[in-house]
């Protein structure tokens, strides 16, 4: 067979392959030009008014104290950003944990056959989901904590009525709960716990092997918990490495114990509940997306309710639920910036204070954005690692 002649190449200006490349180059050039123009605009404006355009301010002292922390006002601005990161992470991590747990439970509760439970869960979700997070935060802070609780001088006490020492203090500026103080034997006890932990890992592996080999339940969770938990408890009793520290009211302040401010409590609680309402909806949707046949098959196998969810439904549902949940975690982390409304010294609030006290604004905001970006990237990365374990092989 004769090979047909190769069609002649179209001229360069009509050659689609060339044009595609040219078009992309043109777009990139336009974007770069645009950004360069904006940047030069900013720099010339700043220089014309004598404002710094460098990042040298990072070494200058911040000059103000941060509530509830040991931050030294003479530390650099970089240290202030670090303090802000720490404060934000305190809210974000606790909030994410709480939101996940509450969201999971409420999501499952909404599908319960118990009418009251289902309706309560629905009420919870529908109320919190439809209110802006700022309003929820201000409600907790102002209505629930500031106005309903007394001032520190007359703080409410709950617990052992032994003179001034109490178990829990509730006031409108801070809460105090008893905490532990380390004694000398603490490091010994820690060593003991470490050894027990290694042993329990060995136990876990052994019992799993036994279960796989014999097919009979080897109770690896029970055995491991008994060894680790029991051993630690025994160590506590024998070595006495910790002692209680009770909060005590001294005039206008509370000494001892572990204190946290109502601002922190309000922010964390409000964000946790708000995000939980969203996560509950995600969980509910993902459970409903699991084929009905799976539920029926699990029932046919005589699995209890808990077993049904734990072994059949949730593994399939979570696969669907994880990506939108990552989104909710990121939202929670970014919503911590609403702390400016209640005076909690999170990263955004501290950056605004820095700017208000003379540090240049464009550079500070740039650093702020970069930090939030890295938060988001790290959270996505971590949860996506978890996601990989859930993925269906072959997809």
């Amino acid at each position, binding site marked *: 067979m004769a090979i047909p002649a190769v069609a002649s190449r179209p001229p360069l200006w009509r050659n689609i392959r060339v*044009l595609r490349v040219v078009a992309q180059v043109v777009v990139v050039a*336009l974007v770069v030009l*645009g950004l360069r123009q904006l940047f030069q605009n900013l720099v010339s404006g700043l220089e014309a008014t004598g404002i710094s355009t460098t990042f040298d301010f990072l070494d200058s002292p911040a000059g103000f104290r941060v509530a509830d922390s040991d931050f030294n006002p003479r530390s650099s601005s970089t240290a202030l950003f670090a303090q802000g990161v720490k404060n934000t992470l305190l809210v974000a991590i606790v909030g994410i944990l709480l939101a996940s747990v509450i969201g999971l439970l409420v999501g499952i509760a909404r599908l319960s056959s118990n009418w009251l439970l289902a309706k309560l869960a629905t009420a919870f979700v529908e109320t919190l989901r439809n209110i802006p997070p700022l309003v929820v935060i201000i409600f907790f802070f102002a209505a629930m904590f500031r106005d309903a609780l007394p001032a520190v001088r007359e703080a409410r006490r709950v617990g052992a009525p032994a003179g001034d020492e109490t178990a829990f203090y509730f006031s409108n500026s801070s809460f105090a709960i008893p905490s532990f103080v380390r004694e000398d034997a603490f490091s010994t006890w820690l060593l003991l716990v470490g050894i027990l932990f290694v042993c329990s890992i060995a136990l876990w592996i052994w019992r799993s092997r036994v279960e796989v080999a014999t097919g009979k339940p080897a109770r690896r969770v029970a055995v491991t918990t008994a060894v680790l938990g029991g051993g630690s408890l025994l160590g506590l009793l024998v070595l006495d490495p910790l002692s209680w520290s009770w909060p005590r009211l001294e005039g206008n302040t509370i000494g001892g114990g572990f204190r946290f401010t109502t601002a922190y409590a309000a922010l964390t609680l409000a964000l946790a509940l708000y995000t939980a309402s969203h996560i509950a909806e995600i969980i509910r949707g993902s459970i409903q997306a699991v084929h009905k046949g799976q539920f029926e098959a699990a029932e046919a196998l005589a699995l209890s309710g808990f077993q049904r969810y734990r072994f059949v439904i949730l593994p399939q549902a979570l696969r669907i639920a994880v990506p939108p949940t990552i989104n909710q975690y990121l939202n929670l982390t970014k919503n911590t910036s609403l702390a400016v409304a209640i005076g909690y*010294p999170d990263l955004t609030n501290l950056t605004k204070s820095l700017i208000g006290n003379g540090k240049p604004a464009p550079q500070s905001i740039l650093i702020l954005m970069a930090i939030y970006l890295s938060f988001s990237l790290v959270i996505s990365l971590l949860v996506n690692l978890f996601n990989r374990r859930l993925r269906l092989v072959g997809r």
Partner: protein
Amino acid sequence: MLTTRWRLLAAILALTLFGAAACGDDDDGGDAADDEETEETDDTVEFEAAQDSSALGTIRDRGNLVCGVNNVLPGFGIVDENGEYSGFDIDFCKAVAVAIFGDVEAVEFVDLTAEQRFTALQSGEIDILVRNTTWTATRDGAESVLFGPTTFYDGQGFMVSEESGISDVSGLEGARICVLSGTTTELNLTSYLDSEGIGFEPVVFEDNTELQPAYESGQCEAWTSDKSQLAAFKTSIEEADGGTQVILEPTISKEPLGPGVLDGEGDLAQIMDWAVFATIQAEEFGISSDNVEGFSSEDPEVLRFLGQEEGFDAGLDLEPDFAAQIVAAVGNYGEIYARNIEPIGLTDRGLNALWTEGGLLYAPPYR
């Protein structure tokens, strides 16, 4: 969809348009190229002045003065339910507007929090900042504010409620102290109490509308701010049956409050300076809004001040009778003080009296 030819045409068109815009005739865009050769601020200002794109020129073209003010501080800058602004700083704003336009209504107020005020001035959102702002070195330098004469000499203090039982500064040990963010108050609080070795917890708010309920409900034991602010709020809290408030003795810092414009706006700054001086000088001469109309005097200083000396022009770019207009519109310094500051409880003028009466208010001679 577009054929290849049309796509190419579109790309070329977009490139041309953007190129025209990017290398275009916008002032800052042009200066971006110029600034690479000239580093000096002065050159840029002269370049702009020649085109009259300075703040004063912009103000004159616009027809009104944009003032950055406080809207929640009784006595200095506050809005009533009809949207009318009143206060010490508001009156000085109006004085500058009268100096420029001769019209006390030619002014627009922009509400600002303490954190926003300097970026608002730097970005050109406002022309002049008259918002109980303390004159400090950092604000003069890094924050590029050009301050006018100090209109109110103040100092920082602490306010506590009587039932807290705190009677002096040492009682603040371990206390929670409410303070506004982005103020000299925040910095002074830290350095003063640290130097006294008194530990405390700062509770930081953006503005007084959030701070006041926190203080009243007891979330913080003490409130620190300029003593004039504390006096204003003491009066309003006690009037609303909030319990007796005590302002502690020590004044822990110097807080010279005054108006400011952006660095480099020399023409506007001059007008701001002489508008303020006019009110002080008027009180010194005994001219008030009641008697300015038919004020007669043999003293050539007074005549010159009121614009009645033939042929005198100080070269300030102001009307000859600008001082008379200002006094007619807002009164002299004493009247402004009496109208705004006395109602909040500061009847003793202290440092804010004329130099002839032992205070610090001293206007340079108008000649």
